[in-house]
């Protein structure tokens, strides 16, 4: 472990299956990545947390419904309140929605299909902890793999999110967002959202699967590196 790398945990639940990729991706992006088992969150000081994809608790009841009551979620709520970066990808996004750390809910894909392919997303806001390496309007090629990624929020919530800059990403085609570029039926083609403070991000696309040229895209690096840098700066701010 080197001292200048932030410590970022990867919360692992029964049924998580993107934890190894997430640990690898965080290391590539410049962090000490630390596995954190869901009921043993005694890990020392963490500067950030990633909740990986998968099928926590078999998706029983609803995606993320049972994981939200795991011991590690108390730690994650505390970290979110302290302003430390928390990134939930795919099932991690679903868990953050169930906990209420992020607004909205998740429905089955509009066309009832599990979708597994690379999509384009457009960066909609830079007012969060995951976008300091990118500019607003940047497009990224990042894979999705989900059966329940149809993001839903009611019109009032959507209006609030838009005015607060909480819509992080929308599905697009060459930067253009439209009905034909919406793979799963999500409200306003939303692919990722943040909390009002901007330190908690949930997204359906998998940035940890787009970090090396051998995998076809390195566009996830900006998101992961931004998180690493934000972990360093939020640690400095909290420890003042």
């Amino acid at each position, binding site marked *: 472990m080197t001292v200048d790398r932030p410590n970022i945990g990867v919360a692992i639940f029964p049924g998580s299956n993107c934890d190894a990729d997430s640990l690898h991706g965080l290391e590539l992006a410049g962090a000490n990545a630390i596995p954190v088992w869901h009921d043993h969150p005694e890990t020392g000081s963490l500067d950030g947390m990633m909740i990986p994809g998968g099928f926590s608790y078999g998706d029983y009841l609803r995606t993320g419904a049972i994981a939200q*009551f795991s011991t590690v979620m108390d730690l994650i709520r505390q970290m979110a309140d302290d302003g430390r970066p928390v990134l939930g990808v795919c099932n991690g996004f679903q868990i953050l929605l169930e906990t209420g750390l992020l607004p909205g*809910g998740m429905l089955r894909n509009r066309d*009832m299909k599990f979708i597994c392919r690379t999509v384009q997303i457009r960066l909609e806001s830079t007012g969060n902890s995951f976008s300091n390496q990118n500019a607003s309007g940047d497009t990224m090629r990042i894979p999705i793999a989900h059966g329940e990624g149809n993001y*839903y929020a009611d019109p009032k919530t959507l209006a609030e999110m838009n005015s607060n800059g909480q819509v992080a990403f929308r599905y697009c085609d060459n930067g253009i967002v439209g009905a034909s570029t919406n793979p799963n*039926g999500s409200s306003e083609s939303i692919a990722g959202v943040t909390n009002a403070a901007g330190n908690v991000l949930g997204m359906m696309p998998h940035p940890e699967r787009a970090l090396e040229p051998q995998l076809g895209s390195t566009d996830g690096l900006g998101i992961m590196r931004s998180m690493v840098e934000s972990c360093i700066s939020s640690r400095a701010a909290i420890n003042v």
Partner: protein
Amino acid sequence: MNAKVVVSLKDGILDPEGQAVASALGRMGFDEVKDVRIGKVIEIELEDGIADAEVRVKQMCEQILSNPVIEKFHIQTEQS
């Protein structure tokens, strides 16, 4: 005592599973089908003699059995 909880998507929220079943029923000749909504039934067996059983089951529904952002619930209780 037994409680039966029916959880379903709120009115107006897209139910792709229900739509797929409605479409299949139409293809099978059940032309009278106008719409199908699919939910889930959760049967809970409770200790007997709990005074506030309905209140407790409602709390269960609000805290985990349903997600109030997208779902509604209905509770039926009966003595076993």
